[in-house]
């Protein structure tokens, strides 16, 4: 990390020992000054808007507190026990995990195929890329309201299905407790597929044409080229996408809140909607804080492990320091 900063100025007289000592001392001082100058604003912001709030939330989570007046009712870890032992919250964690797994299993192959398709030279490519990316630009609230209206019984989705002869597939998309979560996942996919495609398209630009040519010369089929040349080189991009996608799935909120409020009968509750429902709406701010801390810990632990084991190769040098 400090490699660039400690590089000696070109004018520094290297061979003369005494002078070198002075320079080293001066340069160390300079390094510290520079570090202080460059890092202080970021550190202050990070401490003020990230670390302190997390600490405060952790503090609140130990109290039974309705948001008004002083914190007096210390309950220890009861809020955590209540949350983790509740059916609804356990269900919420399950829903988040289902969304996370589905994202990887369904969205990833879909994104890769679309990206490869859109990486070819074909007529109207720019337009198609825009179409795929457009939903990502919409705000999540707008997306949710549009789909909420389209998914009502007899709404746009049902009509389209009937018009193309697939009327038998029509479901109570948002009202059926066994379907609602998958309906939401479909909308999430519609919205976020463009992001994955753009990321992977960028990754594909980094695959040198010479390697494909060399593989082709060696007689590799197009599937073999894809499997053994392109995909391995896309690895870093895919790993970053998985990271973002899982974190996003764990924190899923807006879409669910607007489309179902976590219902019917908690069939689509996520950790974040549970937090707002049981924290804010019920004026249970201590309990809500405990849920927030649990959500934070889950995301944090995942992020740490993922960085340590999956992203390590990709970020080596950038995050792990020079050996």
């Amino acid at each position: 990390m400090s490699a660039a900063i400690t590089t000696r100025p070109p004018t520094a007289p290297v061979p003369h020992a005494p002078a070198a000592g002075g320079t080293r001392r001066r340069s160390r001082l300079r390094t510290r000054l520079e570090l202080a100058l460059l890092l202080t604003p970021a550190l202050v912001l990070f401490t003020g808007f990230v670390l302190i709030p997390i600490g405060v939330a952790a503090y609140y989570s130990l109290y039974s507190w309705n948001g008004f007046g002083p914190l007096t009712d210390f309950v220890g870890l009861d809020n955590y026990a209540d949350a983790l032992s509740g059916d609804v919250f356990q269900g919420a964690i399950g829903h988040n995990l289902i969304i996370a797994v589905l994202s990887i299993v369904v969205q990833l192959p879909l994104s890769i195929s679309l990206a490869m398709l859109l990486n070819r030279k074909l007529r109207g490519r720019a337009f198609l890329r825009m179409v795929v990316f457009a939903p990502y630009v919409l705000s999540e609230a707008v997306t949710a309201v549009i789909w909420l209206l389209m998914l009502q019984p007899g709404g746009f989705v049902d009509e389209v299905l009937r018009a193309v002869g697939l009327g038998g597939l029509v479901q109570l998309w948002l009202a059926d407790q066994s379907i609602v979560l998958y309906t939401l996942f479909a909308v999430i996919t519609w919205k976020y597929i463009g992001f994955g495609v753009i990321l992977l398209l960028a990754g594909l630009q980094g695959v040198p044409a010479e390697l494909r040519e060399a593989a082709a010369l060696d007689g590799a089929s197009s599937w073999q080229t894809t499997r053994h040349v392109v995909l391995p080189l896309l690895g870093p991009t895919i790993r970053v996408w998985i990271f973002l996608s899982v974190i996003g799935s764990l924190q899923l909120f807006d879409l669910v809140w607007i489309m179902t409020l976590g219902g019917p009968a908690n069939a689509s509750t996520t950790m974040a909607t549970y937090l707002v429902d049981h924290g804010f709406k019920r004026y249970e701010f201590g309990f809500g804080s405990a849920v927030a801390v649990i959500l934070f810990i889950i995301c944090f632990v995942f992020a740490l492990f993922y960085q340590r084991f999956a992203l390590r190769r990709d970020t080596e040098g950038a995050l792990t320091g020079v050996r």
Partner: protein
Amino acid sequence: MRSRKPLALFAAAAFVLAGCGGGGTDASTEGPVTLTWWHNRTTEPMKSKWQQIADDFHKTHPNTSFTIEPLQNEQFQTKVPLALQGNTPPDLFQQWGGGALADQMKSGKIADITQASSGWIGPLAKNADGWKVNGKQFGAPYLMHAVGFWYRKDVFASAGVTSPPTTLDELNAAVAKLKAAGVVPIALGGKDRWPDAFYWAYFAVRQCSVDTLKKAVEKTELTDPCFTKAGETLKSFLDTKPFQDGFVGTPAQQGAGSSAGLVANGKAAMELQGDWNPDVMQALTEDKEIGSKIGWFPFPSVPGGQGDPSVLLGGGDGFSCTTRAAKACAEFLGHLVGDDVQKILAETNSGLPVTPAGVAALKSEPHKTIADAMTKASYLQFYFDTAFPTKVGQALNDAIANFFAGQGTPDTIVKSVSEAAAGNK
């Protein structure tokens, strides 16, 4: 990459809370004062009406100016607790009274306006009760609300339902006739949960005596067997399948497919909703005549119930003042319940005026009917989610919504209240 909002929001909230300890600055209310006003009328015509009313008040009271901030209903649930914990809460803000007001009292920032309102609170009579805590006035309503059935006269007529049902049996008969005519009998916005709660609440109001209802709210418990009976009556009503398909996923007020939209577009015959529904319906249909096509009737009586059939379920829109500028604020609240403003409000049909002078100025037929029912009602039962402390009310709503989705029993609903009150999550 999806939303980070809840966490960020919570973090920001926590930060605001952390940064804003310490005492308030009680400015003198003698000099010029600017009142920060949070109200919930984000749409026309009421949005500009409030602006106009504030401007007019400023003309006659040059020392009082306003900074007006309209907020969506849902935002009050999060913004008010934070603001009351901070040093600069709004000077007057939307207040639905009941249990939430009692919760907010713990902040110590809600102004007692018992003295300041003594000159004008009289004509409000019972209407002001919901904004009292321990006999003291901590806010005042400017409009009251009542829930009842809104129905399409044309759809009723074409299905052969000649007069609005007055008993549960008549309602069931009407439902059967409407079904036979191929119309959805009743539209319900189950996604939003609170419309579900209207049904349970009304069955409770019809099954339980007024004394039992009062005691239940006072003690935050539903131990009387009549409340379980209410759930059982609701169950047999649900078994007649009176609602549209997939009602648990239907929003109440968004789009033509919402419950209000279904009635507005003639696809459903009725909806159990508040007096505000005509406005909501008008926004969801091209039909400019909708106002004249709908009528109102109260929730039918339930055979064998101990409840008084005249009792209405409802609530009200009011404002509370905070302590910084309580004097000017209370004066303004007095202005809002004065004859001039009440007459303006009566013309908007966005609720029921709180004073007799205002009620007399009502022009819309359904609203006159509702106001009449309100005057004759022996008691107004506040929505239970408002009457109870917030956490209890929300737990009750959730239990009722689950019941509508096929989960739980009449007993689960009753127990949700005692469990929430005991602090169980």
